């Protein structure tokens, strides 16, 4: 499925692996939390990039001891209305200092895109029939924010800032 970074489609370097799918010989894979737990040692020993998918009811705390090994954490939106992943992203970055990629996948609408990037999400997986200019547009429709984002480090006022979105292309 297409992956967006800063509003533009990018080449995906990850393979999203189902629990019963065999590990490919080469390349980065994303596995479920359950599979990660079952095959943790083997996945690390494989020497290739690895990431974990979290369901919306799996908190970021589940990965505290694993983050050093993970190149990506993928957060699921089973329904766009289920906003738990917003907090998961914030926890990963702010509480656990996670520096790898955070991606969001599942049912996401463009109107959520700016919120996601402000909380430290890098990439969004979008169904092919939903790719379009709306995503890049959504990053710039509103140029003002009243809260600090993850990127802001207390150097700006608590309540008001201009949001500059950088669109890649």
């Amino acid at each position: 499925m297409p992956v967006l970074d800063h509003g533009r489609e990018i080449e995906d370097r990850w393979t999203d692996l189902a629990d019963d799918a065999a590990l490919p010989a080469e390349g980065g894979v994303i596995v479920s939390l359950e599979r990660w737990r079952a095959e943790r040692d083997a996945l690390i020993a494989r020497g290739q990039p690895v990431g974990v998918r979290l369901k919306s009811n799996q908190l970021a705390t589940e990965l505290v001891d694993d983050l050093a090994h993970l190149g990506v954490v993928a957060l699921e939106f089973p329904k766009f209305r289920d906003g738990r992943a917003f907090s998961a992203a914030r926890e990963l970055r702010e509480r656990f200092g996670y520096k790898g990629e955070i991606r969001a996948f599942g049912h996401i609408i463009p109107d959520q895109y700016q919120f996601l990037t402000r909380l430290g999400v890098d990439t969004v997986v979008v169904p092919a029939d939903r790719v379009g200019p709306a995503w890049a547009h959504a990053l710039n429709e509103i140029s003002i924010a009243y809260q600090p984002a993850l990127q802001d480090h207390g150097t700006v006022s608590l309540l008001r800032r201009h949001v500059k979105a950088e669109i890649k292309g």
Partner: protein
Amino acid sequence: MPDTTVPNAHSNQPADAHAGVYRYDEFDKTFIFERVEQFRAQVERRLKGEITEEEFKPIRLMNGLYLQLHAYMLRVAVPYGMLDSTKMRRLARIARVYDKGYGHFTTRQNIQFNWPELKDIPAILHELAEVDMHAIQTSGNCIRNVTTDQFCGAAADELVDPRVYAEILRQWSTLHPEFTYLPRKFKIAISGAPHDRAAVQIHDVGLIAKKNGAGEVGFTVYVGGGLGRTPYLGTKARDFVPVAEIIGYLEAVLRTYNQLGRRDNIYKARIKITVNEMGPEKFIGLIEEEYARLPRQKYYIDPAIVEAIEQHFAPPPWENLPAVSAKFEAAKAADPAFARWTRSNLSAHRAPGYAIATISVKPIGGIPGDIEAEQMEAVADLAERYSFGEMRVTHEQNLVLAHVKQDDLYDLWLALDKIGLGTANAGLISDIIACPGLDYCALANTRSIPIAQQISERFADLDRQHDLGELKIKISGCINACGHHHVGHIGILGVDKKGEEFFQILLGGDATQTAALAEIVGPGFSYDEIVNAVETVVTTFVGLRQPGERFIDTLARTGHAPFKEALYARA
């Protein structure tokens, strides 16, 4: 930095220049117009079928647009209830041009328009934006419009002006990236005085100002209050959070709730359920853990921000007046109807020679909270003449002019009386809160507006109402409790019994600092019986009361038994 310019006291300033409202700066204006354009585009995308109705629904809700029984309803935010005459006149214009000529004040200090058309909504939002108003987050599963004490900035017992923090919370919660898709809606109320006029304990989060031992000001924080089908009073989470830390603390509350609140069942999704299923101690422990590890510096409210916002709410230029007005005293002596109004509708002001006037939007037999465009305009004129162009909407669906000279009260009342807004019933039995019920609401079991109207007519005699004293009736047409029946001195709940409307009576609720939930007395009454039943409760009270007792005082002393007996013995 926020714009700190406050209109100058000398130049040709507008008549509402000193109204205690927050005035948008360039930053806010940019935001609000971008938001209107965003919604315009969203409506277009919806009309073209690029997004589904399911996806459009939370977007329109985030912009205050509901679908009711017969039509769309637009709920416009009145931040913490504060209006100036410019805003009020614009609301009147919207009522006239885009609706059927009236609006409805709600229990959350907002105003609703019941009949707008979808195609007009972007234009309405644009008109609102021109006067620093919006409909953002008046519905949806987000942090809703923050409510407060309608006497803020005028009451004598205030420790901190709650508008300053309500405005800070308004900004902080506006399009909050993390807390806009919560398990359920989230309502915050804030009281700047120990005497709670904002019903804080029935909110998801309630804040009451308090001074600690060192004389510093902070808030006591309650979490997990709410009405609905499972009512709870809030649990005290923290006795004291310094004012500068309140956003950080709320981030911790919201983050904990966003992650752990139930999403499997909308009736169990409010924070009150999370708190009480988990046990308040455990939940509060999690909040404290989250708070302890937050980067607190980031959320610390800089005193410069507070100062800049305080300027918007600077006290208006009150005159130095004697505490007693001879003119006022003479008018009371000469006109008993006016004297009666002063007994129910005035409250003490902190400045000598001034009073706080409550304008009843509950005329006898009227629809609680409904107001016509012409009345809105007339009130705006009166506010300019007598109260610095400022008005407040109360959670009891009335209006308040907070800074009226005692010398002017008689003229004010005469003018109000002429436009049907001079009823002397604030806090009395006909000052009823009623939800929309079957007249508008798709979830209703029963009517509630007509019940309110009939009770009001039954007790139309104002002398009788004054004799009964403070008595709060609150009516909901189903268990969702939009009419606050759980906190009515007398609550009325509409239930469906085999397709027929029935009404249960609850007694003993209280929404103030002595908050309590009302209890059901017994089986319900039919549509034809309910007003008689209310009268039975009232005459029972009159028979039992001791001098000086209010209804809830008598009830607390006697318990429910005599009322139950009176209600059910006659059957």
